[in-house]
């Protein structure tokens, strides 16, 4: 039997497989949010004065802002005072090696299939693991530092590389950019920082793994990646959360910054707990991701596979400032049951001869709503800009919805913009053909969906591609027939 079939067989009997909880002792902030909470988080992390000021500034702005109402998603109002804004697994002392990590923690990550230990070093991925709010372990640090690459948790970076953090923090996503970015700026607890020096091609995939563990907490992490002139890095992000009946908030900020000739490839497989079949529980995933192609000939590529979360609200964007810079966005968003996704991208063309490409594949099943919302903006000076967008939707079942909201704003007449979108049903004849050849209906759907999403899945690094394929099939389980 081929490997593919095994994979499919495996998954047909599964529901959300990361739904377990682990009893980790946690150090938590008191419930609620006010200036004291912000000060508490800052103090907990021994942060310098300037960062506390920065957080407080963000908090004061957030208080004045209103939650955005324009996304095509519906949820009961969030009580921001009923969230625990900081939760860290209790640490005894600072750790010197991986052996000193809490064995419960290592088990947790083993369950996730991420090894923090030595045995799987062969996989060649450096991992920064973030549990609840705090980065717990980063692997391969030494090897990377030989090349001058900095890859560490955010709080560590604040201590060891304050000049870099000060320079780049908030440079791509300003603190008052939007409601959730401001909230994140005020209370972010940790995250990953990555710096690739001039001319260095990062030899391995860098990866962050996020997990929400404690109940009633929100997770607010920040990722900042800076690629200096001529540098290259491929970065992966994955996430899971336990099954819980209440909704949990995840509001992250990701900032990418590329100099001349640099390239960042950022891949996400988002698998937060989506809630149960009746729409109970699940994560609210309100994320701001933006990359700035600052230098000429720089490139930023976003690839995302969105299968989890009760609500997804996320628009990884590219600001193409440098001449000849390039932005890419590849996305597969799958929604089932009562999930809602409003996701897409923004391509802001500022420099000359910039180009961008958008490929978005939405799949909706059950009673879910799936929206693509994107903007392509060609500024006055962006001559010879080029954009190609394709957004396709696949509908499975007669109670789901697929929506497309592409905004195309062109102020320069030399721009060439193409946009196309289709919406259709999964082909009955295709399913029938597969069934005729002894492939079960469920497996046939997985096969067809994988084919449909291939263009995007091909962009993923290999290790993630396999996981993404499994996830796709899993999310759609039971949606046909």
């Amino acid at each position, binding site marked *: 039997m081929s490997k593919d079939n095994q994979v499919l067989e495996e998954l047909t009997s599964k529901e959300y497989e990361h739904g377990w909880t682990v009893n980790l002792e946690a150090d938590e902030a008191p419930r609620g949010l006010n200036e004291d909470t912000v000060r508490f988080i800052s103090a907990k992390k021994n942060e310098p004065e300037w960062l506390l000021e920065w957080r407080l500034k963000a908090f004061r702005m957030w208080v004045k802002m209103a939650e955005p109402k324009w996304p095509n998603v519906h949820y009961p109002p969030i009580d921001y005072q009923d969230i625990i804004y900081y939760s860290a697994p209790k640490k005894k002392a600072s750790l010197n090696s991986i052996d000193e990590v809490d064995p419960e923690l290592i088990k947790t990550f083993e369950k996730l299939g991420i090894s923090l230990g030595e045995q799987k070093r062969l996989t060649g991925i450096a991992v920064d693991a973030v549990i609840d709010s705090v980065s717990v372990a980063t692997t391969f640090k030494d090897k990377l530092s030989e090349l001058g690459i900095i890859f560490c948790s955010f709080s560590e970076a604040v201590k060891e590389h304050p000049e870099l953090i000060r320079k780049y923090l908030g440079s791509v996503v300003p603190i008052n950019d939007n409601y959730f970015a401001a909230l994140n700026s005020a209370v972010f607890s940790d995250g990953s920082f990555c710096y690739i020096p001039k001319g260095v091609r990062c030899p391995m995939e860098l990866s962050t793994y996020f997990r929400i563990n404690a109940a009633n907490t929100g997770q607010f992490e920040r990722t900042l990646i800076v690629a200096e002139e001529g540098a290259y890095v491929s970065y992966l992000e994955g996430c899971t959360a336990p099954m819980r009946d209440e909704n949990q908030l995840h509001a992250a900020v990701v900032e990418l910054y590329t100099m001349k000739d640099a390239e960042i490839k950022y891949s996400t497989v988002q698998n937060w707990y989506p809630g149960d079949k009746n729409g109970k529980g699940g994560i609210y995933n309100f994320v701001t991701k933006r990359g700035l192609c600052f230098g000429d000939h720089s490139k930023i590529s976003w690839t995302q596979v969105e299968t989890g979360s009760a609500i997804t609200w996320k628009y990884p964007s590219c600001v193409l400032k440098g001449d000849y810079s390039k932005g890419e966005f590849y996305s597969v968003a799958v929604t089932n049951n009562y999930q809602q996704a409003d996701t897409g991208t923004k391509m802001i063309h500022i420099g000359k001869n910039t180009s961008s490409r958008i490929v978005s594949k939405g799949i909706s099943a059950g009673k879910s709503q799936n929206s693509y919302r994107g903007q392509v903006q060609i500024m006055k000076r962006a001559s010879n800009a080029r954009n190609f967008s394709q957004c396709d939707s696949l*509908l499975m079942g007669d109670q789901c919805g697929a929506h497309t909201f592409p905004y195309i704003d*062109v102020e320069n007449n030399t721009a060439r913009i193409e*946009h196309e*979108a289709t919406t259709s049903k999964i082909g009955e004849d295709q399913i029938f053909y597969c069934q005729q050849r002894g492939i079960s209906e469920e497996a046939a759907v997985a096969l067809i969906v994988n084919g449909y999403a291939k263009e995007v899945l091909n962009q993923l690094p290999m290790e993630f591609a396999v996981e993404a394929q499994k996830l796709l099939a899993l999310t759609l389980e039971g949606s046909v027939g």
Partner: protein
Amino acid sequence: MNVATKRDLVSELAASRTRSYSPADQALREDALTYLKNTGLPISKTEEYRFAPVTRILEKNFDSLTLSSQVNTVVSVNEFLIEGLKGNIIVFVNGSYAPALSKIVSNPDQIIIKPLSKALVENEEVVSALLNQKEDYKKDPFSAVNTGLWSEGLFFHVAKHTEVKEPVYLLSLNDASSAVSVHTRIVGWVEEGSEVTLIERFETTGHEAAFHTQVEEISVAKEAVLNYYKIQNDPGKSIQVCNTLIHQSDHSHVNTFTLTMNGEVVRNNFSIAIDGEHCESHFHGLYLLTGNTLADNHTVVDHIKPNSFSNELYKGVMDGHSKGVFNGKIYVRPQAQMTNAFQSNRNVLLSETSTINTKPQLEIWADDVKCSHGCTTGQLDEEALFYLQSRGINKDSARAMLLYAFASDVIATIKDETLKTYFDQLIAERLHKNF
């Protein structure tokens, strides 16, 4: 320094209200204006009016929107008629019916055509069943303005199983020798198995500010056919907001063509509600803009029932400082299975200072459907230009040729030959066709 006090345009408009035609009409007008006072006119942050600053231009062009007397210097409308077109001619000057300039030729057994104010008295039952039934004034602030203020309108009613050979030509002429604010309304009913052609044309003379709102509600019954053409050619400082809703029943066909060429701000909210099975809707538009014109086409195709087909094609050419805005919504409701809906929006930007904002939007709740949209923006193909020039055609002619070719597939959708020739002429003139 003068501190500008914030103007209350709604009150200025409301103060100019003069007429009502029945107690029910009176009540409806008051409701609409009260609603408007609470919601206000759209501001720049209003999503639906993000690119069409109608309110701001109104403030700029009008010292006051309470206009007492309006000058009428129109004596002849010959220059605004379509040569060779034998049809019913209805002329409105500054929002009043001009019987001397109008001519109704159709047999009243086939089609009733009369001013709406008259119909509201004489055909009260029919009109009150149609007026403000399909188009709800709460959907758009300018629809509320119109509901509160309309002075005159056109009523037409096509009898069952009748093909009306003579088109209905409605000329809305505004005399802007002094500032004018005009609000007109169209109510139409095409009964079962009938066919009619409606042509609307907007023209303005004079150089002062003009503000025109129009609301149209047209019901197309079972197996009926409506051909609808609109020519918007108001020059100068004119602001126009049209809200059109066409309601389709089973097996009906609707063909529309909107040609927008002039005006300071032209905003069309054009909706087709496909509330029947096996309907066909062809939805075409062409906007050829120069100068400072802003043309904003907001279209909605709403598939409510299953098994229907809609095809939308809007094309635009922007020159000078003009701005084109397109927003095409396709809704496919949960019951509307087996829907086929297509939409295409293509734009050419000719000058460095022209812009286009387009948003083709699909919202689909049914699964067994085929829907697609496409949208492009670009300039004329350099290679095509070069090819023509290398064959001895000068650059201007080559440009005109390519633009004319770009527009020709929309023109080709016009069935009536007289009309097609006329539209072709208008478009060729605008594109400086000289071959």
